[in-house]
């Protein structure tokens, strides 16, 4: 997740529920084993802006009834995707409940924007820790 601080000092107002939900959702999703990164499209999008912050990889939109629809845009490893999405949802719902925002949480949609190869087995030489997992050859995120 990347959060860009505001250019000018932000007002002291606390972040809105929308931004809090976005932060909680993406932070929780990234803790799930199998999720690699939030997806950052080259032309922008897939992000939530508000209260001077920019939370990428998640869109949070207001819905009727005072709830927010959450959309997660993720890069994942090659694992059973429906099961992974369910784990992500469970993790996000748990985090939101603990933060006291459960009544504001609507449907959580998970979209896998990219899939990367699994971690190398212990027999193979490990990749440098700083390099991100390589996408499949020839893939370029549009």
């Amino acid at each position: 997740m990347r959060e860009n601080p505001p250019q000018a000092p932000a007002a002291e107002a606390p972040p809105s529920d929308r931004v809090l939900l976005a932060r909680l959702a993406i932070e929780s999703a990234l803790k799930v084993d199998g999720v690699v990164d939030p997806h950052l499209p080259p032309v922008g999008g897939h992000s939530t802006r508000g209260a001077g912050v920019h939370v990428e990889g998640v869109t949070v939109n207001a819905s009727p009834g005072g709830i927010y629809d959450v959309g997660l845009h993720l890069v994942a490893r090659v694992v059973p995707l429906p099961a992974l999405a369910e784990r992500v949802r469970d993790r996000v719902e748990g985090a939101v409940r603990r933060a006291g925002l459960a009544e504001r949480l609507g449907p959580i949609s998970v979209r896998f924007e990219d899939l990367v190869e699994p971690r190398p087995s212990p027999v193979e030489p490990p990749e440098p820790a700083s390099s991100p997992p390589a996408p499949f050859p020839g893939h370029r995120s549009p």
Partner: protein
Amino acid sequence: MIYLLRALSHLVAFVLLTALALAGLAAALFSIGSGSEGLSLPSLANLLRLSGLEQAVGTFLGGLEGGSLRNETLLFGALAVLVSLLLLVGVLRSPAERTMVLANSRAGRIAARRRPLGQAVAALASRARGVAATKVRVKPKRRGLGGRIDVAAMHSRRADPKEVDAGVTESLKSLVDESRRLKVRTRPDTGGAGARTE
């Protein structure tokens, strides 16, 4: 809407290119001869009545410069500009990429983009024993859940097709298992006569 514009722009491009090809053919044919008779360019100009057309266009352009044209002309001009812009949109804007929807409920939607899903399937299928190469087509349903993934697994003639099929199916379980709406169809293939596998 974007699909309609794309289809329309493709149709217009086809018609215009065909007309251009026919015009080129006619010009080439009428370049064979010389003079003003037979297969000559002046003869082609006479056939097409280009002198009359030149006069008509000249009159129109003169009226346009003088501001004596009627409102209908302005309307048709504006419509032509609008149609041109729509055709440009149809040519330049690609439709949104279809995604494979794996689940959709009140809890939300689970989806995966088509291209990375296909690449992941290809990578997994190629790990199956005896598979030399793979060709994968991911076909999400236009509406609704799921879709189909076709995997053609190329293998050598020595490999048993049934074993290859079973191996590919097994290797894909790690990705698409538990998806009832997702059908994976594997097809062992030696690549036909003369094909080589490495």
